[in-house]
């Protein structure tokens, strides 16, 4: 970013297409969704406005006014009130929805009063004829005293005009207020303005109402400002009056410039709402949607997953026979290839999940779900809006926890954050998938529903049910006072934009694979090292074993296997696994699974990769079989039975359903709650619960 670059901030009501416009301007892609409040943090990108002029564009969360009621909205206020030159925007690009221009102009009028150069982009003009709307652009420009551009971010129309308007507005650097609060109570606002003439009246008013002071404000001035804050009811009354006054001004302006011919408007909304929010069909459809998602995750992905699994096994084989023998080849064949395979294999399932979530958000259906679920969620100390984090938590807990920012009540938000990690995120999927395929037969129930898919569904239900139950307990025990206020906009139904959905799926899958991939790759190298090195007993393993079995007359193959097993047991990782074995034996696990449990505290998905690495090191097979086959044939030397039998498998499934095994989530919870208290409670509470439940399951089934 060079000094000359214009800093542009995108501001507007939720769901008006700011992110779509941001994508068009910057060419960067980020999440766009038809659920109000999808952008919950600011995001930057750069844009070439003309041959000589660049701009740095910031995309902000949507807000209805500058007065924030939730964390995402307060980000906008903070950006606007920041007076230091580096951060504050030069030009504000207000994005408005053509269909609801009146309400969109309220925020516009507030921003105008901050006296920052402003461009108004009226978006979704492709909908104008369908809705019977006509606009007198020249008159509107004049009335608002602002550059106004009609655009369609989706159809890529008017983007060049936006760029030109930004430059024009920046050069002119003119900024005039739109409303004058002095009209509400002249004496009161005169006195306020007198405190510091360097600030606009509206800025001073915001400092009073929001108690948000720039650093440059002196102590004296601050005290004066705070004295305005004493009479709370008066303050509140004036805020109400101000809003009404703003709407009066807006109505005056729009009266002659913005016309709606209702007779021409065609609207599907009412008909669709009748079905989607119906007291019976509404829930029924929601349930069907969920069922469809889970069925597809299992059905559509099994083929590509098997393919990936065998491909990586073959790749290992190929590498083994073509690379010279040595330490480095061992690392590649036994550490890196199985490790990477362990990540790649989740791609199909994760992509399908993200695809469904993106489509649900794009179409506007999510808001209907919020509407349907609010009353139910409230009984459990949450909010209708909590359903979004709970659903997107099935993909990944991190964006889900970020999504709670739209919930304005702190208690409801905190409870949602605390229980989200119980929902089955996609990192659990590979663990579930491999365990289910080992212990549940591949048969059909009720004639059509796959038993394995049904088990998976039950695991999702278990996660969701536990989340709800935990929320209920938290609601009863947490002593936090915060008033619960709820209002959700119901956006129009839209056909999902294929581009938005595809970008979304691509971007999220990429982020997930790269993020998880790095951890898995690093861990698999560390693991491989720990598994192929050890103290004295490791180095002597070969010699000792040969001596021990000398009289047993074993074939070379058998002997090699025996040696490999003893080696693994005496390696560093083997010693670590062995040392926790007493604690996990009652759950039905051996020390090898213990190793996988230890490593998967970094991230759950490491489980499969870890076992893959351990078993490739452990078996000295010339032919690399797939991970699944290796796990299936594992025998517990103590009992002579299969390790992954039904009781142990079930116990592991339960353990993974409850345990808090994701460092990234803990870090995000710390950031969002601003203390280590809550992530630590999650870590110990959830893992303790996991231990107890797995113990019960194994002891009953055994």
């Amino acid at each position, binding site marked *: 970013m060079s000094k000359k670059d214009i800093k542009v901030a995108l501001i507007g009501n939720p769901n008006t297409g700011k992110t779509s416009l941001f994508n068009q301007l910057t060419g960067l892609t980020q999440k766009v969704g038809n659920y109000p409040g999808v952008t919950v943090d600011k995001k930057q990108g750069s844009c070439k406005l003309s041959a000589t002029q660049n701009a740095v564009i910031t995309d902000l969360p949507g807000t209805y006014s500058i*007065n924030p009621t939730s964390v995402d909205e307060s980000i906008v206020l903070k950006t606007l009130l920041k007076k230091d030159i580096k951060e504050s925007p030069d030009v504000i690009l207000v994005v408005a929805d053509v269909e609801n221009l009146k309400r969109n102009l309220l925020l516009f009028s507030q921003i105008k009063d901050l006296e920052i150069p402003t461009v108004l982009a009226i978006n979704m003009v492709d909908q104008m004829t369908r809705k019977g709307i006509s606009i007198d652009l020249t008159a509107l420009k004049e009335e608002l005293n602002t550059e106004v551009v009609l655009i369609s971010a989706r159809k890529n129309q008017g983007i060049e005009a936006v760029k030109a308007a930004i430059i024009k507005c920046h050069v002119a650097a003119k900024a005039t207020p739109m409303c004058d609060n002095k009209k509400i109570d002249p004496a009161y606002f005169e006195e306020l303005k007198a405190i510091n003439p360097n600030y606009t009246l509206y800025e001073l008013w915001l400092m009073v109402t929001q108690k948000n002071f720039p650093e440059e404000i002196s102590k004296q001035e601050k005290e004066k400002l705070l004295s305005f804050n004493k009479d709370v009811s008066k303050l509140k009354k004036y*805020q109400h009056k101000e*809003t009404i006054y703003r*709407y009066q001004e807006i109505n005056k302006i729009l009266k002659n410039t913005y016309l709606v011919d209702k007779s021409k408007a065609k609207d599907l909304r009412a008909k669709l709402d009748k079905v989607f929010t119906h007291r019976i069909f509404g829930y029924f459809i929601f349930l069907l949607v969920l069922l469809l998602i889970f069925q597809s995750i299992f059905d559509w992905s099994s083929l590509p997953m098997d393919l990936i699994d065998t491909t990586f096994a073959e790749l290992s084989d190929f590498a083994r026979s073509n690379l010279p023998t040595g330490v480095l080849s061992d690392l590649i064949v036994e550490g890196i290839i199985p490790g990477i395979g362990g990540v790649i294999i989740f791609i199909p399932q994760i992509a399908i999940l993200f695809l469904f979530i993106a489509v649900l958000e794009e179409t506007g259906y999510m808001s209907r779900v919020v509407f349907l679920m*609010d*009353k139910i969620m409230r009984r459990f100390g949450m909010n209708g809006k909590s359903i979004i984090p709970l659903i997107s938590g099935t993909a990944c807990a991190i964006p889900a926890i970020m999504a709670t920012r739209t919930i304005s009540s702190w208690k409801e938000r905190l409870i949602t954050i605390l229980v989200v990690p119980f929902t089955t995120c996609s990192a659990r999927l590979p663990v579930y998938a491999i365990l289910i395929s080992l212990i549940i037969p591949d048969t059909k129930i009720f004639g059509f529903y796959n038993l394995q898919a049904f088990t998976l569904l039950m695991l999702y239900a278990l996660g969701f049910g536990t989340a709800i139950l935990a929320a209920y307990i938290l609601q009863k025990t947490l002593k936090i006072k915060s008033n619960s206020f709820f*209002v*959700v906009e*119901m956006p129009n139904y839209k056909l999902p934009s294929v581009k938005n959905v595809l970008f979304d799926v691509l971007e999220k899958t990429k982020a997930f694979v790269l993020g998880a991939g790095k951890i898995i790759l690093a861990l698999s190298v560390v693991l491989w090292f720990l598994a192929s090195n050890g103290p004295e007993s490791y180095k002597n393993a070969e010699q000792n074993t040969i001596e021990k079995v000398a009289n047993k007359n074993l074939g070379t193959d058998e002997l090699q296997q025996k040696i490999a097993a003893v080696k693994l047991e005496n390696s560093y990782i083997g010693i670590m696994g062995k040392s926790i074995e007493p604690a996990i034996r009652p759950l039905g696990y051996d020390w090898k699974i213990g190793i996988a449990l230890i490593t998967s505290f970094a991230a759950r998905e490491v489980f499969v990769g870890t076992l893959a690495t351990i078993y490739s090191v452990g078996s000295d097979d010339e032919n690399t079989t797939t991970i699944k086959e290796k796990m299936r044939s594992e025998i517990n030397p103590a009992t002579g039975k299969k390790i992954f039998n039904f009781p142990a498998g079930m116990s592991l499934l339960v353990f993974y359903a409850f345990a808090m095994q994701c460092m990234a989530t803990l870090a995000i919870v710390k950031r969002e709650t601003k203390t280590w208290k809550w992530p630590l409670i999650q870590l110990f509470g959830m893992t303790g619960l996991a231990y107890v439940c797995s113990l019960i399951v194994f002891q009953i089934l055994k």
Partner: protein
Amino acid sequence: MNTIASLHIGEMGYISEESLDSIPLKLLEMGCLPGAEVQLVQIAPLKDPLYICVNGSHLAIRKETASKIRILKSE
């Protein structure tokens, strides 16, 4: 006393001037103004929240809030 909560599905009313103080600021800002026409579009299956249309905005609000906003029913 008539409030938004006492409307039937499809029915309309005007928000009365005297309820100004009991409308939360956020709702005012979203267009729920005294004098504005309001229609009850849908009631959620468990009788709460309510789905209303006011001043061109389609909003879902809780019954608790709705029952504080007085209206004059239109004939």
